[in-house]
C-alpha cells in the first residue's frame, strides 16, 4: 500500500449554469471538502476560463497540492487543459482526475436535481479515491510517419493534400470515383467569390496537385482497412482496375457500349464507359464502370487502349494521420413533396446543371417565362433534417440571377433568406433584377398543383398579411439542401463518431473543430456538415495543419498509460503474454529476481486486457493501477461512510 498523505484540491465547475442549474455545486464542493486528503474544495463559474485556471494554479503552488480533481464537462474536452494547469504550477500532470458532471450528470438528469447532485458527489468521491493513489508519470515518445492519408478527392480532400505536401509530408489521396473533383465538379456554377465557376476551382486544384510530386493520387480506390494508432497507421487501399491502359479520345466508345443506365447523380443516360467528365479532369484516362459492365468485349475490339484483363490491386501504406473528406449528397425530395415527381417540378441541382449547360431553363423546348423557387426543402424540418444546409439560399439566388438574365421571371417562396455574409450581394442583385419574394410560415407551407398542363403554386404570403396568392408558373424549383453520404463501410473502418444528423462529428465545434475522438483522424469539408465551398476549403486547410502539428516533428508523444509488471509479484503464469493482442509482453531475466514477464512500452497500447487475467495482480496499468480502481469502487458510493 502507498502512503495516503496526499494533499488534494477539488474544483467544481458551474459551466455558466450548464451544471449549476441542475447540480447544487456548492453542496458538491462542501461534501468534497469533508473527504479524506482533500485540502481545498472550491466551486467556480467557468473552471476552464483564465481566472479559473489561475485559481487552481495558485492553489497548487501555495497549498503545495499533490493532486487535483476537476468536476466539470467531459474529460474529452478539458482533461488536457487541467493537466497543463498542474504542469504550469510545477506539479505532475498525471496527478489528476477529471470527473464528468455535465454530459454524464447535469445534462441527463435535469428532472432529478437532488439525485443529480448526489451522483455528482459520487463521481467526485471516486475521483478523490483515484488521485489519492496516483503517482507522477512521464509521457512516452514514439516515432511518427510523416505522411497523411486523405479520403475523398473533392475540393476539401484536394486542398488538404496540397497543404500536407507543402508542409513537406507525403500525401496519399484516395478517391472512390474514377475522377477527382467530387460534388463541386458535378455542375459548373458560380461560387463565392463570384466571377469564378466551380469547375475552374476544381481545375485549379487539380493543376496544383499535379505540381507536387509527393502527392500520390489513387482514383477508383477505397480505404479497405486501417490499423495502428496515431503516427503509426497502416492503411490498405483497394484500387479497382480502370481497364484502360492509356487515355483515349474516341467519343464513339460510349455509344459502342451496349449497356445503358441512368446515372443516379447526374440523372443522365450513360454507358459503362466513363470518359473524363470535363476538360482538365484527372486522370485523363477513362474508366469502365464495373457495376454496369458485363465484359462483352465490344469496346476492347474498337479501342486498343482498353485492357479487360486488368486486376484489382491492394496496396499497403504507412501513414501518421488520416483526413476524412468524403463530402455530401444532395437531398432528393420524396414523391409528392411540393409536387416532386410532377412534370415541371425540378430540384435546385437539376436547375443548376441545366443552367450551366444551356444558360437558360427550357421545358418542352419552350423557354420558361416564370419560375417559382420553394426554399428549405429537406432542411430545417421538424421531423427529418433539422439543420440549415447553409449553401442553398445563396445557390438559389445565384441561379435566379442567371434565369433573370435569360428573361425568366422568378418568384422566391421562402421561410427565411440566409444569404449570409458577403453572399448578401446576391439577394441585392436578384431583387434589383426583378425577383419577387413571398414569405411562408412553416405551419402552412405552399402547395404545388398541376391542373391541365398548368402549374400553380398556392402560398399564404406573410408579407401581404397572410393573403393566399396563386402563382401560375412554367416550372417549380425545389431548393434542396445537403444530406450526409451513406458511408457504412468506411464508418466501420475509421470508427469516427457520426452525429444525430448523420454527418461526422468533431470533438468540439470551437475547441477541436476538425479533430475526432480517434486521435490521428481528422474530418473536414461537407462530410462534417453542410458548408459553402469557401468553408470546406478552410476546414481542409485546418485539418491539414492539425495533422501536421501532431506528426511533422517525426515523433509524437503518447500518454504513459501502458502496462507494467512488478517482477516481485509475477509468478510467470504466462497468462498476460497469451492475452496481449499486440505481443507486447515477453519473458525477461530480472537481475536478482529471475525470469518474469516484461512489457515493451512502445508496443503496448494500454488496453489493460492483461490486467484482467493476471492471477497475482502483478501486471497493472500505469495511471490506472488496480488499487486506484478498487479505491474508486469502494469509496464512490459512500455507502459505508
Amino acid at each position, binding site marked *: 500500500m502507498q502512503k495516503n498523505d496526499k494533499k488534494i484540491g477539488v474544483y467544481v465547475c458551474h459551466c455558466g449554469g450548464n451544471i449549476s442549474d441542475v447540480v447544487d455545486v456548492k453542496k458538491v464542493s462542501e461534501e468534497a471538502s469533508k473527504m479524506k486528503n482533500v485540502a481545498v474544495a472550491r466551486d467556480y463559474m467557468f473552471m476552464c476560463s483564465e481566472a479559473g485556471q489561475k485559481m487552481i494554479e495558485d492553489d497548487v503552488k501555495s497549498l503545495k497540492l499533490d493532486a487535483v480533481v476537476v468536476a466539470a464537462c467531459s474529460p474529452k474536452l478539458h482533461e488536457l487543459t487541467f493537466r497543463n494547469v498542474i504542469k504550469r504550477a510545477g506539479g505532475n500532470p498525471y496527478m489528476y482526475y477529471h470527473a464528468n458532471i455535465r454530459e454524464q450528470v447535469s445534462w*441527463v438528469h435535469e428532472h432529478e436535481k437532488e439525485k443529480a447532485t448526489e451522483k455528482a458527489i459520487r463521481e467526485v468521491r471516486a475521483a478523490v479515491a483515484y488521485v489519492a493513489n496516483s503517482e507522477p508519470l512521464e509521457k512516452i515518445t514514439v516515432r511518427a510517419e510523416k505522411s497523411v492519408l486523405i479520403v475523398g478527392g473533392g475540393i476539401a480532400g484536394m486542398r488538404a493534400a496540397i497543404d500536407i505536401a507543402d508542409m513537406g509530408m507525403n500525401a496519399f489521396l484516395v478517391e472512390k470515383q474514377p475522377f477527382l473533383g467530387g460534388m463541386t465538379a458535378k455542375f459548373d456554377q458560380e461560387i463565392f467569390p463570384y466571377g469564378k465557376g466551380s469547375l475552374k476551382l476544381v481545375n485549379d486544384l487539380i493543376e496544383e496537385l499535379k505540381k507536387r510530386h509527393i502527392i500520390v493520387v489513387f482514383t477508383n480506390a477505397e480505404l479497405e482497412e486501417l490499423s495502428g494508432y496515431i503516427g503509426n497507421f497502416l492503411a490498405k487501399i483497394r484500387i479497382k482496375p480502370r481497364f484502360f491502359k492509356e487515355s483515349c479520345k474516341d467519343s464513339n466508345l460510349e455509344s459502342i457500349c451496349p449497356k445503358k443506365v441512368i446515372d443516379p447523380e447526374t440523372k443522365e443516360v450513360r454507358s459503362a464507359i466513363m470518359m473524363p467528365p470535363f476538360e482538365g479532369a484527372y486522370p485523363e484516362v477513362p474508366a469502365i464502370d464495373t457495376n454496369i459492365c458485363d465484359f462483352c468485349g465490344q469496346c476492347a475490339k474498337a479501342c486498343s487502349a482498353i485492357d479487360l484483363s486488368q486486376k484489382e490491386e491492394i496496396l499497403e501504406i504507412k501513414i501518421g494521420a488520416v483526413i476524412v473528406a468524403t463530402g455530401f449528397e444532395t437531398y432528393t425530395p420524396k414523391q409528392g413533396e411540393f409536387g416532386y415527381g410532377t412534370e415541371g417540378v425540378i430540384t435546385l441541382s437539376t436547375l443548376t446543371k441545366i443552367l450551366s449547360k444551356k444558360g437558360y431553363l427550357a421545358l418542352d423546348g419552350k423557354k420558361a417565362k416564370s419560375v417559382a423557387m420553394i426554399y428549405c426543402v429537406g432542411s430545417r424540418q421538424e421531423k427529418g433534417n433539422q439543420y440549415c444546409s447553409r449553401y442553398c439560399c445563396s445557390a438559389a439566388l445565384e441561379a435566379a440571377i442567371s434565369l433573370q438574365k435569360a428573361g425568366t421571371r422568378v418568384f422566391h417562396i421562402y421561410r427565411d433568406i440566409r444569404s449570409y455574409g458577403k453572399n448578401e450581394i446576391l439577394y441585392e442583385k436578384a431583387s434589383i433584377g426583378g425577383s419577387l419574394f413571398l414569405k411562408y410560415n412553416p405551419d402552412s407551407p405552399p402547395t404545388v398543383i398541376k391542373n391541365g398542363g398548368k402549374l400553380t403554386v398556392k402560398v399564404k404570403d406573410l408579407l401581404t398579411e397572410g393573403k393566399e396568392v396563386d402563382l401560375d408558373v412554367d416550372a417549380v424549383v425545389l431548393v434542396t439542401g445537403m444530406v450526409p453520404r451513406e458511408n457504412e463501410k468506411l464508418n466501420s473502418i475509421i*470508427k469516427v463518431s*457520426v452525429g444525430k444528423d448523420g454527418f461526422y462529428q468533431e470533438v468540439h465545434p470551437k475547441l477541436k473543430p476538425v479533430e475526432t475522438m480517434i486521435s490521428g483522424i481528422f474530418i473536414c469539408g461537407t462530410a462534417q456538415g453542410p458548408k459553402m465551398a469557401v468553408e470546406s476549403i478552410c476546414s481542409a486547410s485546418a485539418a491539414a495543419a492539425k495533422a501536421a502539428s501532431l506528426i511533422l516533428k517525426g515523433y509524437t508523444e503518447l500518454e504513459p498509460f501502458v502496462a507494467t509488471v512488478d517482477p516481485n509479484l509475477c509468478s510467470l503464469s504466462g497468462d498476460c503474454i497469451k492475452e496481449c493482442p499486440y505481443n507486447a509482453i515477453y519473458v525477461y531475466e530480472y537481475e536478482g529476481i529471475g525470469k518474469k514477464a516484461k512489457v515493451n512500452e512502445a508496443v503496448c497500447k494500454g488496453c*489493460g486486457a492483461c490486467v484482467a487475467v493476471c492471477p497475482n495482480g502483478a501486471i497493472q496499468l500505469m495511471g490506472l493501477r488496480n488499487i486506484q*480502481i478498487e479505491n474508486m469502487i469502494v469509496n464512490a*458510493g459512500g*455507502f459505508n461512510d
Partner: protein
Amino acid sequence: MPELQVLVFSTNLISDVGIDSAGLMHFPYPANTTIIRLPCSSMLRPEWVLLAIKSGFDGVFVAADGSDCPYLKDCTERTAKRVDLAQRILRENGIEPERVKMAAICSVCAEPFANLIKDFIGNLEKIGSVRRGR
C-alpha cells in the same frame, strides 16, 4: 428499500463517448448510476464486480466496447469471459449473478444505453437492494 445504485464501467474511447452522447442529446436515464472509466472493457478484473456489490452497489453494468473496440477485434468475447467469471464469483458468494450485466455501447449509442440502464435497474428492482435491512 434503499434506492438501488448501479456502478457502470465505461471505456474511454467508445462507450464513455456513447454515454456522453446521451448527455449531448439530453437523453435522460436514471440518476442512481455512477460511472468509472476504463480504457477497454476487457481490463475488468472479475473480482471487481464482487467488490462493487460488497461495497454497496446493487448492480454492475459493463458498457463494453463491442466490435468498435480500437484495441481488440475480439473484445466482446474477452469481456464476456470476464463477466462470466464475475457471475461465477457472485454465485459462489451467494449473490445473484443477475447483478452484473454487460452490453456493447457504441460511441453514438445514447438511446440504447439509456434503455439498457432502465431495463437493468428494472430487473434489479425484482431482486432488491443488497443493502436491504440496513
